């Protein structure tokens, strides 16, 4: 071994030890006579010091080092006179007696720091340098820990890891396949799997009643932001199970991973039907970190907005809104921003109606001309609104309006800081429709499929 210790592990208790470290030069600081250098590996950073009066050769060599040189340094661990509480290794330094350059480095095209000065493209070109950055290392180590925890859980539940082939038959369903020409079968092609779906079902037929695989999948798609043509799936299948068994097993897996990797105990996952998710959140993957459920004003027997000659509401299939706590003082400018937000072509709402619930119990709305204060009071009651609340209401065709209101809800969640990074709110969504009608092609499509989740978070 080139080293006796890694760069993250020495502490005060090691003072006086003779050690050998190997790693990359993070930076060099020259204080006239004394010279200090940070040496980095994936475990951390140590500061090593050179005193020209004690060791002229090593000091001379250290002076010639650049960033990212690979070096080997031998010396003694010593207490620092000038301790750095920011660094885990900040109480000690190593007084170098011998220094070797294992390899020189060109000046890297960007700084190897958490806050790097390199742009996306540059960092992609030099991915091996980008991966030296601590945040990337932490992410890959995290991935490793998640995979370990997944395997530990599934192994404990008698799942068997079975590999399925990557060269398979092309079935031009679903997304586009990546194809591979076959040399031995001229003019014929394999496809790369979009998922091991049929293989895992065949493994069930074969009697391997609990199967899993952390497996690469391939889809030749037009790439949107944050999609990858090859991606990894935790693929699982069980025989002799009902829905309840599968939910229980994999809720257990997610809980186990969070506990093991993050030390977080997740509560039991609530369940919601697809219909309820669409009705209450306009979304089949609702963010439950905050409430702000849809309130429907025109539904079944209920119509709180009718007979007042306000056409956008009278003619709408759906009139619904959200109650935003404490935002009654939103200015004209704020409200204009939100109106522009819902009118974007992607959302396509025709406008936004607001009702401010004022401190004195009265209401101020963008539809005062049409609705009496009694009307507004009834509407506010439907929202369970209190003074200080702001009601935001959209109207139009159900599908588009639900989607726009869903996005508005998420936007308000962002604005009010309700989507906290440290909160985790998992749920099961159940009872999807099996088919949806494709009016253009005049036929039925299956709505739910193994790749469904890849639509997430795009």
């Amino acid at each position: 071994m080139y080293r006796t210790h890694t760069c993250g592990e020495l502490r005060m208790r090691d003072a006086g030890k003779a050690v050998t470290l190997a790693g990359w030069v993070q930076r060099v600081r020259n204080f006239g006579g004394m010279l200090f250098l940070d040496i980095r590996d994936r475990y951390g950073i140590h500061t090593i010091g050179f005193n020209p009066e004690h060791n002229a050769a090593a000091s001379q060599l250290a002076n010639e080092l650049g960033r990212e040189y690979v070096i080997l340094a031998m010396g003694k661990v010593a207490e620092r006179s000038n301790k750095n509480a920011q660094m885990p290794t900040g109480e000690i330094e190593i007084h170098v007696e011998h220094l070797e350059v294992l390899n020189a480095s060109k000046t890297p095209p960007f700084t190897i720091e958490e806050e790097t000065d390199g742009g996306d493209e540059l960092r992609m070109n030099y991915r091996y340098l980008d991966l030296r950055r601590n945040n990337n290392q932490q992410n890959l180590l995290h991935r490793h820990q998640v995979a370990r925890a997944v395997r530990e859980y599934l192994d404990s539940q008698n799942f068997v890891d079975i590999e399925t082939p990557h060269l398979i038959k092309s079935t031009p369903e679903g997304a586009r396949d990546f194809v591979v020409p076959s040399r031995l079968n001229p003019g014929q092609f394999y496809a790369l799997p979009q998922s091991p779906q049929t293989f895992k079902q065949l493994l069930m037929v074969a009697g391997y009643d609990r199967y899993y695989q952390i497996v690469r999948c391939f889809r030749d798609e037009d790439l949107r932001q944050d999609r990858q043509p090859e991606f990894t799936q935790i693929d699982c299948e069980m025989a002799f199970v009902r829905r309840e068994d599968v939910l229980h097993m994999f809720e257990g897996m997610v809980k186990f991973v969070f506990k093991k990797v993050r030390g977080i105990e997740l509560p039991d996952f609530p369940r919601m039907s697809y219909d309820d998710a669409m009705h209450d959140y306009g979304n089949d993957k609702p963010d439950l970190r905050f409430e702000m459920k849809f309130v429907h004003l025109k539904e079944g027997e209920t119509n709180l907005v009718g007979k007042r000659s306000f056409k956008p509401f009278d003619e709408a299939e759906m009139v619904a809104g959200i109650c935003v706590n404490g935002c009654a003082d939103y200015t004209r400018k704020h409200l204009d921003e939100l109106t522009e937000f819902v009118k974007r072509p992607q959302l396509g709402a025709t406008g936004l109606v607001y009702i401010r619930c004022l401190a004195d119990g009265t209401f101020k709305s963008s539809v005062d001309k049409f609705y009496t204060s009694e009307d507004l009071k009834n509407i506010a009651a439907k929202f369970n609104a209190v003074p200080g609340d702001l009601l935001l209401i959209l109207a139009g065709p159900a599908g588009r309006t639900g989607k726009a209101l869903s996005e508005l809800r998420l936007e308000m969640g962002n604005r009010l800081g309700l989507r906290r990074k440290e909160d985790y709110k998992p749920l099961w969504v159940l009872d999807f429709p099996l088919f949806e009608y494709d009016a253009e092609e005049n036929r039925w499509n299956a709505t739910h499929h193994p790749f469904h989740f890849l639509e997430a978070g795009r």
Partner: protein
Amino acid sequence: MLRTIPFTSWRPEDEAFFESDPGKIKANAYDIVLNGVEIGGGSIRIHKRDRQEKMFTMLGLTKEEALQKFGFILNAFEFGAPPHGGIAFGFDRFCSMTIANQENIRDFIAFPKNNMGRDMMLDAPGTIDEKQKKELGLK
């Protein structure tokens, strides 16, 4: 062209809707959602040939097309296929979500591709030489 691979079963009580209103049939399917992001999904599958054929027919495949494309699994269902179901999680996404809700999956892949599906470092995809093409019977 089918948009999906249709192996998901349906609630037995919805059987009658196949004739009357297929839009009302509920899938025996589930999604796991975390903070507004779908991290996994799956279903209880069809495990009988006649059910699977009914599904293919519903999706507009002729008997011949179904056999040509999925004959292997239709046949397998005739040799004692047990009831089964499963789930798949997007692992890259799962990793990004389990660490402080980070959203960019690319940060959790050692060597990702860019938005054009290119590996910038390797400069892939690239061309292949004439000899390779010839061997593969490509023009």
